[in-house]
């Protein structure tokens, strides 16, 4: 089924994205967090059975996190982006790993890099970063220069008892 038709059946507003050089149609829609699972199930049962990616955007001025669920249909050759907004102060959402198992890995990464909590996912532990001791590093208010200076430049050189510079 075409994506436009599925959007109409779900009663969602959508926009067609224009990407230079890419002729495949792409659609983006904003979904309410409680409606998302239902929408993904609908898309999945209508040919959109490839889950491409789950990404997170930090809209620091609007105080929101945007989660984008990216689906693709091999039959219709169409991309669909479903996005939900979460409050930035307490970002919390439920896991959707029962729909596509690869969502678990994306959720682990987003939990580590942005600090978004996914209820029901029990593997949200240390993933890519090791021995991390600060706030999630991909948040916009994380000052990477200050952190690098504090952590790495303060490590002293090896004092070999020779002449100093």
């Amino acid at each position, binding site marked *: 089924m075409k994506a436009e038709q599925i959007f109409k059946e779900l009663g969602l507003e959508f926009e067609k994205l224009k990407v230079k050089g890419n002729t495949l149609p792409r659609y983006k829609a904003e979904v309410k967090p409680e409606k998302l699972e239902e929408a993904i199930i609908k898309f999945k049962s209508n040919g959109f059975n490839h889950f491409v990616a789950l990404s997170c955007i930090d809209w620091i001025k609007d105080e929101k996190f945007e989660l984008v669920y990216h689906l693709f249909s091999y039959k219709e050759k169409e991309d669909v982006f479903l996005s939900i907004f979460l409050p930035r102060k307490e970002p919390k959402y439920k896991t959707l790993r029962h729909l596509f198992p690869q969502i678990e890995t994306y959720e682990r990464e987003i939990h580590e890099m942005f600090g978004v909590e996914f209820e029901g996912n029990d593997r949200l532990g240390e993933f890519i*970063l*090791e021995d991390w001791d*600060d706030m999630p590093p991909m948040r916009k208010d994380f000052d*990477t220069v200050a*952190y690098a200076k504090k952590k790495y430049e303060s*490590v002293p050189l*090896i*004092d070999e008892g020779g002449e100093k510079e």
Partner: protein
Amino acid sequence: MNENPLPSIIPDKEWKKIQRMLSKRSLWMIHFCTGCGAMEMPPVMTSRYDMERFGIIPMATPRQADLLLVTGYVATKTLKRIVRVYEQMQDPKYVIAFGSCPINGGIYWDSYNIIKRLDKYIPVDMYIAGCMPRPEAIMDAFLKLMKDIDEGKANGWMRYRKYYDQYRRNQMRIFKRWDE
């Protein structure tokens, strides 16, 4: 009674000289490809530049290697593995820091996860600057390292033993825990 006494004519100092002369001619190398640097190694290894004519061959395990090549940036997670590989190697061992990232951070100067200077954590005998260094620069570094070994200047492994406390202290500032 010992029927084959050691040739006492050659003093200990001279033995070390001979040892160095022999060991510089058979450097077995393990390259720890952390980042982009691995791309420059195939021309050096293969017929174009052919490092084997100097007795340098790539080796599979750290326990058989003399030379550790750290190519590219070193993340905190990688540093733990590099230290582990380095400590597995047998003396005498040498380290070459390859590219600008292990020297001062390179393009990752402001990254939250890249350690900036490798020589704060393990001793480095030779640096190759550049992003990326050409195979000629790598060959040049190998020849200079061989010269240093011959003259007894490449003694990073002795420094690691001597200042082990300081190296370990610096390493533990980055790692929260060691046994993982």
